[in-house]
């Protein structure tokens, strides 16, 4: 949600963001049994549809990974949902903002 004011949080260093991006990409590849390397996921391409080609079952799988690993419960009724799965980068930003573990 580009125009939304993000609440103040601990600043995240670029190095931390890169580490988390790699970690989330790795978890996705493992959980979905994708036949690509985690580093091959373009952080700016959509995760579903014609981007990485994921479907709703995959999105559910990712939601479970995210809840188990970071304590973030995704909700479909939040307007942000489509935004979150718009790219790996946005998913990682959302996790960073909402993680409880």
């Amino acid at each position: 949600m580009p125009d939304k004011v993000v609440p103040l949080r601990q600043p995240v260093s670029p190095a931390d963001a890169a580490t988390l991006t790699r970690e989330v990409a790795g978890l996705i590849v493992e959980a979905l049994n994708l036949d690509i390397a985690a580093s091959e996921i373009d952080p700016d391409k959509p995760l579903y549809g014609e981007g990485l080609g994921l479907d709703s079952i995959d999105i559910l799988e990712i939601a479970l990974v995210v809840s188990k690993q970071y304590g973030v419960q995704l909700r479909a009724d939040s307007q942000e949902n489509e935004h979150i799965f718009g790219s790996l980068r946005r998913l990682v930003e959302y996790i960073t903002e909402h993680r409880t573990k």
Partner: protein
Amino acid sequence: MIAYRGGAPVLATQFLRDMHRVVRALGSCANVLNACTDRYHFTVGFAATLVAGKVSLLPSTQTPAMMRQLLEFAPDVRCLTDDAACSIELPRIPYPADEAAATGNAARDGATAVPLIDEAQLAAVVFTSGSTGAPLPYRKSFGKLMQCVREEAFRLGLAGTRPWTIVATVPPQHMYGLESSVLLALGNGHALCAERPFYPADIAAVVHSVPRPRLLITTPVHLRALLAAGVALPPTDGIVSSTAPLPQQLAAEAEQRFGTHLLEIYGSTETGQIATRRPTQSPEWQLWPGVTLSSSGETSFAHGGHIEQRTPMCDVLELTGAGRFLMHGRVTDLVNIAGKRSSLGYLNHHLNSIPGVEDGAFFHVEPSAASHTGVTRVGACVVAPGLDSARLLEALRQRIDAAFLPRPLLFVARLPRNSTGKLPHEALRSLVAAQAK
């Protein structure tokens, strides 16, 4: 009370008014593809289609290839949709804008008589993917559909009781959702819930938002997700699972954590639901009264009761007594991904219809140990020297449901066919294993 939308009740009088508005919107076409995503809209559309003497067409998927086949089957078909961004390639009828809910006397004004539908009227044609690329139509009369869900209500303890609320995680466009989330409510005086919650936190919130007693209509995939997600589970008065067998341990955990009993339903697009079991009590399935199974070789046929025609079942079934059976897995060719059914034959047909594909075959993939949902996919080996993975996947996306897109997709020089042109399972498995290294 006929439904809940966003936690607010919808009265039967409102439903009848909405139904007549949709009847007028449907116009003169004889066949309707009801693509409404809001379950209340779908139900209004289904009832309007019936009352107008038209037929609901329920295809197994909404790919462009399937829509072309649907147009051949019924050239005047129109798509009733409540989604402004609907991409279905058929002439569309927009679902009329919702009226503000009337209250008090206004709600009773304009009350119309509840329509009576002839039992013999053709209510729906549902399609299976078939095994050769052509979808197969199955005709459902209104009477047989209602006969089936009256028994379902009895099995679930929802016959002649006070009104329940039914929450479902499955779409209303397939047989399980149509029967258990729409017709079960309409035919037995219960209320359906318009939402189709997806994420575990959403499912828990929607169940929590509707009055008890409440029933959750779901699948092994959603149940597994709900139990794994670490969300608080609201007290629920009954759970139904279908589309794939539920492991006994998962059923026990669901019963314990929701504090209720869980029934599994066995059925198919062709037959509708035909048996139930409570997996924590017995692995045996109990057939609907009047329905019988008979075996011929490996294949079991179901017939009688509400079943319109004698139907071969896609699973290996063992008769254990009068009206009872055990299930021993699927017939090898069958594919079931999170309740979406197809066959390797159907998928192979579409793969090989793509220009540039010289040969290709789908195969079953072993489940990933890292998966929380337990969903397994299909893979494919393909000989297509002029195509890359992106172009091949795009061509497949036009033809088959996205759930069946191959993962992995392996490009090979040739398939290990034997001298008669057959592709032995073992040879294909060795090829896949070699590619994986």
